[in-house]
């Protein structure tokens, strides 16, 4: 009996990160299906999946940073940098694998710098990443002389087309890449020492350092991963539109954070996972599509989205009352 009880508690613990979010996804989908013509059509779902994939990849990096108690506002600049770099280097005739490696290395380097500076001088990540974002954006402009050249390799365009398929799957390859990456990251977080260190660092950095598991390297790694994933999202976005664009990342400044939170992750560090992040990206994409479906004006869309974010998060992401935290 006791074993059954323990088993069920564990199951509940596992599911606690899921059902409410999944319920929300289903609820929004059903509302969309009944209120908006074509919302549940296959083309519509495939389009939403592609949009959720870009958001999801950017938000995955954000999740890692949030887990160690930081926040990464250089994501839009890095998406833009990855995007413009991919187009320009491809336009110069460089082979795609080389381009992708270069872009990811650049993203990794900037992210690592973010993490290192944050932990070395003990300064808030929010402002550090804001500053590096400004530097990265400026360097891209200087490098390209503020003119856009080049274009995406053609395979990348197919890769991110919402009408493409992956083998037998009727989803674009970018969606599959996102899901595989999310699963891999979830595995690393749950099952490897590196992943556990991340949580330890996020829950209590000082205690983590006392236990010799925290510190600069963990922090630096988390930010570096975020930088890499943002640059990857930028590269994939090059395929989406076919060309480079400096401010392509701008919409992801807050939407990546919003996706992390809508999945039910805590921004205070130490609590959260990739599954929730993916669910958050899906909910956010569903909601924006729904609002476009209602033909609201863009201003009204923004206002209603703000209210909906609060309401959805309020349905499952509230903190415990203070009295029960003691």
């Amino acid at each position: 009996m006791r074993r059954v009880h323990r088993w069920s508690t564990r199951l509940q613990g596992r599911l606690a990160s899921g059902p409410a979010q999944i319920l929300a996804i289903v609820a929004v989908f059903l509302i969309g299906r009944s209120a908006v013509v074509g919302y549940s059509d296959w083309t519509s779902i495939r389009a939403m999946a592609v949009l959720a994939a870009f958001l999801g990849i950017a938000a995955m990096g954000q999740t890692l940073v949030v887990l160690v108690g930081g926040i990464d506002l250089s994501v839009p600049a890095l998406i833009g940098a990855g995007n413009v770099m991919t187009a320009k280097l491809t336009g110069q005739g460089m082979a795609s694998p080389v381009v992708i490696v270069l872009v990811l290395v650049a993203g990794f380097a900037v992210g690592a710098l973010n993490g290192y500076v944050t932990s070395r001088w003990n300064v808030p990540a929010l402002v550090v990443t804001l500053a590096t974002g400004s530097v990265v954006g400026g360097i891209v402009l200087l490098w390209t002389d503020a003119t856009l050249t080049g274009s995406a390799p053609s395979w990348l365009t197919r890769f991110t087309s919402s009408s493409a398929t992956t083998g037998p799957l009727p989803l674009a390859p970018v969606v599959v890449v996102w899901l595989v990456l999310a699963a891999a990251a979830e595995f690393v977080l749950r099952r490897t020492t590196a992943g556990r260190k991340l949580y330890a660092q996020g829950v209590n950095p000082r205690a983590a350092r006392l236990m010799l598991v925290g510190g600069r390297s963990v922090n630096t790694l988390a930010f570096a991963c975020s930088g890499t994933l943002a640059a990857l999202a930028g590269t994939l976005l090059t395929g989406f539109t076919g060309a480079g664009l400096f401010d392509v990342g701008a919409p992801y400044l807050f939407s990546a954070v919003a996706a992390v939170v809508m999945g039910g992750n805590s921004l205070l560090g130490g609590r959260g996972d990739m599954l929730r992040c993916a669910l958050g990206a899906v909910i956010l994409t569903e909601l924006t599509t729904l609002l476009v479906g209602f033909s609201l004006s863009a201003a009204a869309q923004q206002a209603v989205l703000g209210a909906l974010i609060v309401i959805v998060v309020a349905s499952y992401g509230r903190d415990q009352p203070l009295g029960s935290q003691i």
Partner: protein
Amino acid sequence: MGRRPPLFRRRHLIALTMTAALTGTAACAAKGGSDTDARAAGAGTGGKGCGTLTYKDPGGNADLSQLPKKIREGYNGYFAPVNTSVYKDFKAKSTGHLKIGYSDSFSANGWRGDALARLKQDAAALQKSGVMSSLRTANSNLDNSLQIQQITSMINQRVDAIIAIPNSPTAFNNVIKQAYDAGIPLITLNSHVTSPYAINVDTNYHLTGELVGAGVAKIVKGQGDVLVVDGINGSPASSTLHQGYQAAFAKCPGIHVKGSLEGQWSEATAKSLVLQYLSTHPGQLAAVVNSGGMTNGILQALQQTGRKPVPIGDANPDQGSLVSLRKLLPDQYAAGVTPPAQGMDAALLTAIAVLHGQGPKYDAIVATPTQITGRAALDDWIRDGWTASSAAQAPAPPGTDWLSPQQLRSYFQRPAALPELPPLP
């Protein structure tokens, strides 16, 4: 730390019900809203005027009647009143070795990049011939107070004239007055300000929208549902273009503006939104018009939701959009153009002319937009090496007369020779 929270709680359900209620309300509000929108657009002057334009005076105290016909047409429906310029009797302290300041509000897009590159090229040439002595550039990244600060510091450093792309039509009036008081004329480029102390070298966005809209209306034979993809909400260029489109479609009772999206002049945003729009609006779409440079994103969204390309209107297409149009819709597009290089040349020459005491007649020097349609125009326009996926700004089609030095003479009281600028790109 106590018990585990139960899987579902009452408040989950309450919140989800609230979500449902709110989205439901939004839906109803939206349906009401869009219907009236469509009706307003349909309530036009009857079917006769569909696809044509009628002259509408912009108002203001300026006398435009003495202008040559072609130039006067440029003021048709201009969104702001045109007044006589306060600089009409202006005399500058120095007329040679000019120090020019350039205050830009945004750098991360191709148009601004090309404009800046052209200005640098011009300045280099003029420095050689002794007309200019230096060029100062500043950029505010959409931050109004930073731009005010940058213009202030240009005034402090006593530049001779300032060319600016202000980020707001109203927020800069104080600093523009300061410049005027210091004897420094401020010339805006493609961003009209309400201050009487500026000289606006502008594009008639309303007329551009109306011309492109009329072109599209003709192509779809005055029938069907149209989607408008705007630039950035709250930006005058975007809303003026939108009004131009509305004005054109209002003349066609058969055309309904079914929706408008905020594409933010970004292919990626436009494509995402159009994908979402098309997925949730399965009905037939007759045409899509946009505020410039988003055609490629729109065409890709159409294709990826399994639809055929529909006629496109683009107020200022980029290179890739033109190549795609030639491939997919060579006879079913209408385009305008707002060339950065010619615009910058006009602003610079205006600054020099004002400093040389030529006396600008009006506070707005408005270029006459052109309507571009048809396959031949595309063949003429597209250059070797442009690819379908290039987002770079397309230079104006060859032969476009966009506030050329010759045309500029008409806007001045005492026109005189202006310095020669390098050949256009």
